[in-house]
């Protein structure tokens, strides 16, 4: 799944470690989400979106998920 996490992080000059600490996860998980290896749970997606002051749809791109 594509996300805007890396872009939003760079805008705010945040490291993966800082974001991870703020949303209650690890740096490795943030890396995996950013590169699309891991799909965040609804709870984590909500925490990340809320941290950036955006909605889940604004951070995560669900368009590819509907393709069969």
């Amino acid at each position: 799944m594509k996300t805007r996490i890396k872009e939003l992080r760079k805008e705010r000059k945040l490291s993966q470690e800082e974001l991870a600490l703020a949303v209650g996860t690890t740096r490795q998980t943030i890396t995996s989400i950013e590169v699309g290896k891991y799909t965040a749970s609804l709870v984590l997606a909500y925490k990340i979106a809320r941290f950036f002051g955006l909605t889940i749809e604004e951070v995560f791109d669900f368009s590819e998920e509907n393709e069969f």
Partner: protein
Amino acid sequence: MEKFKRTVKRRITISSGMALLALVLGAYSIYSIITADISTATHSDGFVAGFQFGLIVSILVLSVIDIIKLSLTIKDETKLKLLYNKEHDERMKAIRSKAGMPLIAVTSVLLIIAAIIAGYINITVFYTLIIAVATQLSVSAVVKLYCMKTM
């Protein structure tokens, strides 16, 4: 975070207990090895005694490392938060689940206890159980590493 702090303190206490127990068992193990009658002892007796001693030393070393690590963590709020995040990380939980944890750890401990007991009765059963434990832990570790690479 206070609740997690209490959990960490409890873990330090448990590890201290384990270290103390390992120390007592280690001392008894050394005493048994020194006072053993070498003339009647078989190669298997020596192997089982050596395995037990190695296991005790491993428990002691791991417990001491755990005590030091947790004691340093509890003093630092950031380190404590990092440890909490690491232990409650959803990705790691999924990986551990795929690697068969915590069931593999529980069955491994039970099989090691069974192997030690069996070692006094039948050495073939002892070897079989130890190989079974080593195999299941190896498979679990490989699955975990694979999942960590792909997830």
